[in-house]
């Protein structure tokens, strides 16, 4: 995944950088909703060896044909700055905001980030009961069930979802589908 680290031994570029700590940032990218725009963004990440921890996209302003792409990425501060500028350089990109940097500027820990997951658990007896009990504790809801299975819908920070999934593993987890992270800034201001 981390091409920056992989190339560090090979390229003079990164000799000075190995000691820089990596950080995880959430970027919000406002783009024209036109064919190929997602391919441009993804191609940029794969072509330049940047990480994608999570990527979500959907049209958010129909009249203006604007989509919002939310990307969670990991890299050194220099690499994250590069990612922001490289994204900004794409012609159909209107605006790139590093929500993590914005939060820090406002003395907040992190932007608001939520993810939704659908989690299928198959089991019977105690395990089934335990799964249901825990889902309640996580405030997941049952959206489909038979006597053999549950499908839970859970929303929250990625860490919460991860925790839920790992707890469900021994209880008969068979399938997970996650949306990836949606994020906005706290407070009254818009992008």
């Amino acid at each position, binding site marked *: 995944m981390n091409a920056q680290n992989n190339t560090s031994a090979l390229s003079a570029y990164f000799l000075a950088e190995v000691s820089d700590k990596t950080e995880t940032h959430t970027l919000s990218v406002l783009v024209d909703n036109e064919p190929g725009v997602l391919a441009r963004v993804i*191609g940029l990440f794969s072509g330049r060896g940047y990480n994608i921890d999570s990527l979500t996209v959907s049209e958010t302003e129909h009249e203006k044909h604007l989509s919002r792409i939310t990307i969670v990425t990991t890299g050194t501060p220099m690499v994250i700055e590069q990612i922001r500028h490289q994204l900004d350089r794409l012609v*159909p990109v209107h605006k790139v905001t590093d929500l993590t940097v914005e939060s820090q500027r406002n003395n907040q820990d992190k932007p608001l980030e939520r993810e939704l997951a659908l989690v299928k658990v198959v089991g019977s007896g105690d395990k089934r009961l335990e799964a249901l009990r825990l889902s309640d504790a996580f405030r997941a809801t049952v959206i489909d069930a038979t006597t053999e299975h549950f499908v839970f819908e859970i929303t929250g920070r990625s860490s919460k979802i991860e925790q839920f999934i790992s707890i469900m593993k021994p209880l008969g987890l068979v399938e997970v589908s996650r949306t990836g992270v949606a994020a906005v800034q706290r407070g009254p201001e818009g992008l």
Partner: protein
Amino acid sequence: MTREMTGAEMVIQALKDQGVETIFGYPGGAVLPIYDEIIQQEGLEHILVRHEQGAGHAAEGYARATGKPGVVLVTSGPGATNMVTALTDALLDSIPLVCITGQVPTHLIGSDAFQECDTVGITRPCTKHNWLVRDVDDLPRILHEAFYVATSGRPGPVVVDIPKDVQFAKGTYQGPTSNPSVSHKSYRPQLKGDAQAIRIAAELMAKAKKPILYTGGGVINSGPQASQLLRELVSLTNFPITSTLMGLGAYPASGANWLGMLGMHGTYEANMAMHDCDVMVCVGARFDDRITGRIDAFAPNATKIHIDIDPSSINKNVKVDLPIIGDVGHVLEDLVRIWRTSSLKADATAMKAWWEQINAWRARNCLAYAPNADIIMPQYALQRLYEKTKDRKTYISTEVGQHQMWAAQFYGFEEPNRWLTSGGLGTMGYGLPAIIGAQVAHRDALCIDIAGDASILMNIQEMSTAVQFGLPVKVFILNNQYMGMVRQWQQLLHGNRLSHSYTESLPDFVKLAEAYGGVGFRVDKPQDLDGAIDEMIAIDRPVIFDCRVANLANCFPMIPSGKAHNEMLLPDEANDEAVANAIGAAGKALV
């Protein structure tokens, strides 16, 4: 102006409205409607190349030699894929290109139709932007936008892919908007630099004790006015100035403050001054790895100011202290004005000491080579070529290899836009089509491709183009019978095992020239060189000049990969042993 017309007519009309006079192209099924319009009009000249890659590089050469965008027209499938190298070349060297490709009809897209390829998919990573036009009514807007994107901000190549049914379809043509920058929704490059930052830059420069101007291709991109302002800045400050390969000619090589090119094959004085400077003003250059060498040892004591129009160039490879985002011309205008109107002055005492130091480095005479009475040294050949052509309006292109570096070291450029070379991608086969492009734009000029024996064979077919269009380009081959640059690296890195870097069975270049309808020369004696060059210049036809040079000469100075600027290999030190041990284990993996 709005008018009903077919997509194919719109292409011609839009090109004319954008001021295009010449396009380079090659026909095929998917662009026949456009070709049918080309033959029925006047005012737009079409240069028929012999390979689409040639069209791409010719358009690049045209663009560099004129400051205008180069325009290419090719067919779908193989026509488009043959353009990929040229598009990538233009992207890395920031050359404005508009490439129009034909595509299979929209209803066949995705069906693996004859000569179908996913052109926008293939060219997405090697263009600044690209478009697939699905509706003829979008075509005029997209064509005008294509020119705007290619030429504004950091210039680059764009592709407009037009399905054949769209070329036939009728729609309403719209002329270009008067100010595209205002109307574009999402793309608005910043031209003016931040006034505060420019002021701080001026103050830093005034306080500098060992300043240097490190300039690059961005000065050329910005237009001749930027070169003028750069010259003014140098005379106001008396700062030493060096340039990358891409920026040669922005400041004249005969100028008193010129240190020569910097970087891997740059001069000793330029690289030492870069290493020791305390204030570095980077003007339209991108801290390429050929320049920086080992990043952590790059100008360790310098406060770095970086003027660049592309924010992604800032802090990409090297962290700078003062970024100024804007067009070189605009920023230099402000900087020169501040320098003129304020009381700022360079520190005269410090500058005197700095120049003394620089002159001591200069005295090292780093480009010296052992002269030879019997064999033509490649450096000597270029010195003679320079002497014989410098007083003319001369354009020089190169292929890629040792000859390219020697050309950069030994040919003195006095003006911007006279030097065409493939820097970023390093594309062998660039030089001949590129010089054809320059000659198309400047019919009266002397246009020379300084070539290598291996590179020239990569697009030699374009001799046929030169002959057809009466373009008297001169191909001056420094024929060492080797892929010299590859051999040099094998000597440095691979124990002198010369794996496949010797070209056996080179063609007879004289006969080859004749076969194409040009004129061939062969010279292998130093004393015959001057006369033959004179003769070559006098001939008003395409020429291949097979200049047989010392086979084993190597190109120095050289900063081996992974080394610092002050660890250069100089010619007088570069004996076999030094060469074999120049690169440590860590450096061997670098390119």
